[in-house]
């Protein structure tokens, strides 16, 4: 048990240590500096931009930046929607998989365009190799890069003095995809391939088992996708059970690599901020605040999962390795709990165990991660959410000390607060509103267990399944309490819309907010200024995040996981 906890601590330590040089590398990439990888990847970057007829010198204000973002995403949505609905008649389909049904395709493509990767299908039986490659993996690269680009634009705005130009969307996105995500993906894909993740274009194979039966083993071009789904906070797996499947995550070493891949760019982006703004102390304070939110969640999940399921312990079974329903022997309970926490505080959403089968309080941790959705965060976007909380914290702190609130020498006024509130309130509205509608439909349906048949589990856990689905959609996370029978028109369309709103509003509103801040002159900092790079501010921010970010979810937490926990004891 101690060795398991040591493994968790070691994993976190390795990831933090490596996130710093990667964060600095990203800062150089986005501010046009030179790196040792330039000879390989700069020509590729130039080629992509030239072929797309992008003028790399063109500077965009926030509106033009947002317009490029939305337009390119719309085109990608349409193109990939066409591919997966027509996959049955296209090439690279050795297992003869038919085109996807329209509401499921709407959900799937919305899910991958918004970097959510919520899946209401099982990849091995619902997508051709072509779709997995040029629809899914393609979106996993480009949407992650889009999120990083949006964050970089916001960082530039924060450092600006009467600034209107935020950079160029296509240049930033290309740099993120070609010079950050691609090199890391090449390395991670090669390493997990070595560990046993398949990479083949041949179809499923038939094995004649030792007991003489036939076993059909699905495989495909898996390694390439698994690398980017981990690194780009995408999370959508090749196979239904994601990185729980031994092909997606074959060994403890692949598990370590994939866990690292979930966190390293989201963590690195916090350091990138400090490099670009030349305020390393600010990065340290924000990173420490995020870590102080993350570590208690890890501790809760790990302790609950290695503690086991009391209902199974009551049968007298040896549960010394923890709660193992839905978990794999090669990872163990503690590393599964670490993954469950990491994948939900960032907006990754890949899994290496079944979250639906976690212990009651262990299962509360992924919920909390998605409700906050700002610890390290999705590639780029998580930090954007934290930025909103920073603005609110600055405002509250300013009110408390009776001064005009300001952040980095910029006044925070009514317009900024309105935009921050919009981004802040949408998240709970989508989750609580969506869950309320689903619960109402369930409660009023005659004999819902046969007429709707959504829920795998009865009682409070069934409520948790619905709550999880909307939390995951709104947070653009993508993990699930997979017992939910979610491939129905209601769930496909409702969570599809929640994902779209949950992606574009929290990108565009902060972009507008940051632009509004950027256009203001910098006031010289004085003794009376609020220092954002102090431990006091870190503590204030931590409290604001916990109180504002979590309190509104307290009632549903009590109805779901906490009620279930109390029922067992």
């Amino acid at each position, binding site marked *: 048990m101690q060795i398991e906890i040591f493994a968790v601590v070691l994993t976190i330590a390795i990831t933090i240590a490596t996130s710093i040089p990667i964060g600095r590398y990203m800062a150089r990439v986005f501010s046009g500096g030179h790196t040792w990888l330039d000879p390989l990847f700069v020509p590729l970057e130039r080629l992509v931009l030239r072929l797309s*007829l992008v003028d790399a010198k063109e500077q965009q204000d926030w509106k033009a930046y947002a317009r490029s973002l939305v337009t390119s995403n719309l085109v990608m949505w349409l193109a990939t929607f066409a591919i997966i609905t027509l996959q049955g008649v296209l090439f690279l389909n050795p297992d003869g998989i038919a085109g996807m049904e329209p509401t499921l395709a709407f959900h799937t493509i919305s899910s991958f365009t918004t970097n959510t990767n919520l899946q209401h299908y099982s990849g091995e039986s619902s997508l051709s190799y072509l779709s997995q490659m040029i629809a899914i993996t*393609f979106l996993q*690269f480009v949407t992650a890069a889009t999120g990083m680009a949006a964050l970089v634009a916001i960082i530039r705005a924060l450092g600006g003095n009467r600034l209107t130009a935020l950079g160029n969307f296509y240049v930033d996105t290309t740099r993120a995809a070609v010079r950050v995500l691609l090199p890391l993906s090449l390395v991670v894909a090669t390493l997990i391939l070595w560990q046993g993740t398949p990479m083949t274009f041949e179809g499923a194979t038939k094995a004649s088992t*030792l007991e003489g039966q036939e076993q059909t083993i*699905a495989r495909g071009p898996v390694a*390439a996708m698994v690398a980017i789904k981990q690194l780009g906070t995408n999370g959508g797996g090749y196979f239904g059970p994601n990185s729980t499947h031994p092909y997606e995550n074959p*060994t403890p070493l692949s598990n370590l690599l994939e866990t690292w891949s979930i966190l390293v760019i989201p963590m690195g982006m916090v350091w990138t901020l400090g490099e670009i703004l030349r305020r390393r102390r600010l990065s340290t304070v924000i990173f420490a605040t995020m870590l102080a939110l993350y570590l208690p969640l890890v501790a809760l999940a790990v302790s609950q999962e290695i503690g086991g399921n009391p209902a199974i312990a009551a049968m007298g079974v040896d549960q010394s*390795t923890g709660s193992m329903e839905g978990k794999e022997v090669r990872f163990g309970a503690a590393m599964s709990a670490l993954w469950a926490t990491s994948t939900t505080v960032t907006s990754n959403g890949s899994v290496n165990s079944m979250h639906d089968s976690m*212990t009651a309080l262990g299962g509360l941790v992924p919920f909390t991660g998605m409700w906050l959705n700002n610890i390290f965060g999705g590639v780029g976007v998580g930090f954007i959410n934290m930025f909103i909380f920073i603005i609110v914290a600055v405002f509250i702190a300013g009110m408390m000390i009776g001064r005009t609130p300001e952040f980095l020498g910029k006044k925070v006024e009514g317009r900024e607060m309105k935009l921050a509130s919009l981004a802040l309130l949408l998240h709970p509205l989508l989750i609580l509103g969506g869950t309320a509608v689903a619960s109402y439909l369930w409660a009023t349906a005659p004999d819902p267990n046969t007429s709707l048949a959504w829920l795998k589990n009865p009682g409070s856990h069934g409520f948790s399944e619905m709550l999880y689905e909307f939390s995951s959609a709104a947070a653009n996370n993508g993990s699930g309490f997979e017992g939910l029978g979610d491939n129905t028109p209601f769930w496909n369309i409702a969570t599809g819309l929640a994902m779209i709103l949950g992606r574009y509003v929290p990108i565009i509103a902060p972009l507008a907010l940051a632009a509004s801040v950027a256009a203001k002159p910098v006031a010289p900092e004085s003794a009376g200024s609020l220092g954002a790079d102090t431990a006091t501010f870190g503590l204030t921010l931590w409290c604001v995040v916990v109180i504002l970010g979590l309190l509104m979810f307290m009632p549903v937490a009590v109805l779901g996981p906490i009620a*279930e926990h109390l029922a067992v004891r």
Partner: protein
Amino acid sequence: MLTELKRGMLFTIVTMVLFGGAYHGVIWAIGRMVFSHQADGSLMRDATGTVRGSSLVAQAFTRPEYFHPRPSAVDYNAASTGGSNYGPTNPDHLKLVRERLDATVAGEQVQPADVPSELVTASGGGLDPHLPVKAAEIQIPRVARARGAAPDDIRALVQAHTEPPLWGVFGWARVNVFGLNAALDQRFGVSR
């Protein structure tokens, strides 16, 4: 707006070719050149070249002369995988665990406290290829009886197929069930 749309379309096509196509090609080529066994799915063949399974994918073993893997919610269907998704308090789940426990206690002639929870809970993907060492050990007497072999010989094979934790830290010591059963057949012959 039209230039914007055109740029979006071109960018989509170019990046689709790069990340949907070329990137896969590079990883595929590395697989073919360096890791072809893994790239094909770690398939295990017998002397005649027939594929008997994958060392990474659990298959169903029910006969007494084989070690049994962890329960699978999808009956070891490697073309449609998944976990049970039962919540921890679900009565159906607990009933199933109880049934598996009773079957294991009767089949291996052990006490409930000797049964590791891995043998009564379904794995996440339904294809967990491993057993913890203890879950293999309690099966040794039964396998030895069924094969008319000395338990110590079986135990030696179990040890030979035990993978240690990575760097002594990551993952429990675990037994690869397919590898072990294939070795049993090789050593003691296939009993039909």
